[in-house]
């Protein structure tokens, strides 16, 4: 990593796509994010793994600039967050669907296109085609199945072709087949140069990521590829690795 690249605000390519520097977020006495520093390289899929309540969502919110850190700072594409300029280059799929249930699929996508300043309908149709919803333009979002809503939610995060994508538990509550499709999308986007951060508490998704960050009580307790982490912990699988590295029992589900 070239530290100069971040200070000069260089984006794509040269520097890390995402940088966290001694990030702390405290809610009263609880440190939801506790002194987290890392650099994430462009074009890779990072899996953020940890039990519920370990601070994954708060960390994502700090990285997008939605929450202000108690201490430390974060940069995306070399720009310190929060930054309105950088929000146009981030895709964020929230844990809840975050779509308007009374609007149609097309109206939801059109609205988020406009919110991101995307002109014309081409990008929107492309995003909907990617999630296989382009033939459901006139369906009311609230009447879609859970999996379809999740797909629409993903499409709305992709409309502006963001180079950085945060996906907060994107595969929760969707069937195994759709999960396979989602991961194929994520891989295609990463191959095209996007940096993707996926949070999950499902360990069997971990091996689809290029690199894993184990999160426990607001701290990154391990980082590396699945194989590296297993080797480091000397265990057969990631659940055991998580336990051995201090992950605690509730992470193994």
């Amino acid at each position, binding site marked *: 990593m070239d530290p100069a690249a971040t200070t000069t605000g260089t984006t794509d390519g040269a520097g890390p796509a995402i940088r966290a520097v001694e990030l702390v977020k405290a809610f009263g006495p609880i440190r939801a994010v506790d002194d987290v520093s890392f650099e994430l390289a462009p074009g890779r899929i990072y899996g953020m793994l940890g039990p519920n309540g370990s601070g994954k*969502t708060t960390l994502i*919110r700090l990285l*997008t*600039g*939605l*929450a*202000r850190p108690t201490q430390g700072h974060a940069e995306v594409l070399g720009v310190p967050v*929060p930054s*309105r*300029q950088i*929000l*146009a280059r*981030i895709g*964020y799929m*929230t*844990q*809840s*669907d*975050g*779509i*308007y*249930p*009374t*609007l149609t699929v097309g*109206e939801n996508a*059109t*609205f*988020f296109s*406009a*919110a*991101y*300043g995307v002109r014309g309908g081409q990008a929107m149709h492309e995003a909907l085609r990617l999630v296989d919803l382009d033939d459901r333009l006139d369906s*009311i979002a609230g009447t879609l199945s859970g999996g379809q809503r999740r797909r629409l939610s993903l499409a*709305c995060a992709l409309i502006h072709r963001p180079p950085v994508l945060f996906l907060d538990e994107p595969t929760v509550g969707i069937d195994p087949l759709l999960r396979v499709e989602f991961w194929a999308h994520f891989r295609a986007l990463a191959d095209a140069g996007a940096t993707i951060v996926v949070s999950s508490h499902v360990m069997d998704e971990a091996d689809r990521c290029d690199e894993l960050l184990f999160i426990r009580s607001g701290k990154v307790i391990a980082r590396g590829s699945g194989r590296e982490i297993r080797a480091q912990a000397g265990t057969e699988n990631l659940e055991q690795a998580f336990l051995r590295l201090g992950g605690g029992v509730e992470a193994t589900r």
Partner: protein
Amino acid sequence: MNARRTAAIFRRVAQEIRRDHRSVALLFVVPILMTGLVTFIVREGQAPEVDAVVVNDAGPVGIAVADALDTTLTGEGGSARIVADAASAEAMIRDGTASVAITLPAGLGNGGSPTITILTDGLDPTGEASQVVAVQRALVTAAADVTGVRPPAIEHMTLYGTPSDDPMAAFAPGIIGFFAYFFVFILTGVSFLRERTGGTLERLMATPVTRGEIVSGYTLGFGLFATIQVALLVAWGLGSVEVPAIGPLPAFSLGLGLPSAGNPLLVFLVVLVAALGAVSLGIFLSTFARTELQVIQFIPLAIVPQFLLSGILFPVSGLPEILQPFVLLMPMTYAVNGLQEVLIAGADIGTAALQLDLVVLTLFAVFFAAIASLTIRRDVA
């Protein structure tokens, strides 16, 4: 502030309201039903029927008074009859066969100032007060009949013409302003809250959309529907269209036909500016709510005081001194005052008092919109 993004939010809010048939009904139908109901009650309310019993301690004069009283009360659907004594009169009040017992004292008609007592059961103070007034009026008439001395007549004139014989004229400014304000407030507050609870605000905050654009978009979206609502309400309130009899349907008139001394467009303007203030107040307060129940909990805080202190329920001049400063803080005060200016005094746009009301209402709307966009925090989750 980006016009395209603001327009996108405006369009989206309008689409959402249009799809939500309950909200459309709440905005457009309910105020018309409510104002119609109030008007019906006020106009068609019945004069109290007084069934009086008279305890006569005044001898022949009393009998003459009781006769005259009976004549007057019978004309109003009631009656008056003499009973033996106070105890039986009281028993009749108790069992409900009479509503008022009148005791005519000895010495009535002999000069001096004798006291006539009126007894009621005291269960319904408001209703009984109107009965007492009716009895007083009948007694004055009866006394005049008996003595032949008539009190001077009083005729009430006002600056803006004799008082309208429509009893709704006094209520019109309050109810038109209030119903428009109330329903717009609730709907905006709850809708904006859905943005938070549905997770879409979190998502919107992760786009380049600014808080000012969100508030402006919402104000425009709800402003559009508020405009339609106010136009309907004013047309309904002031208009009166005679619908001729068609087949088995009898002829009827559509609209309340409330009297207005001023231009209906000014009525529309005052109510519209007030309703836009309700939009921004709704957005502002919903930023402090986490659930729809909490929005409803703001009603006693934000709406009820306006109902009590703006001259809708109690005349402002009759409120205690200590409450007068609060009167000035209520947007509704200026709406009611402005509507009185137009409806009763026939103010035009050049009238200073009306201009002041409009300016203050506009300031309220802008002020709450401005602080609403400050209170939508990025820390929304």
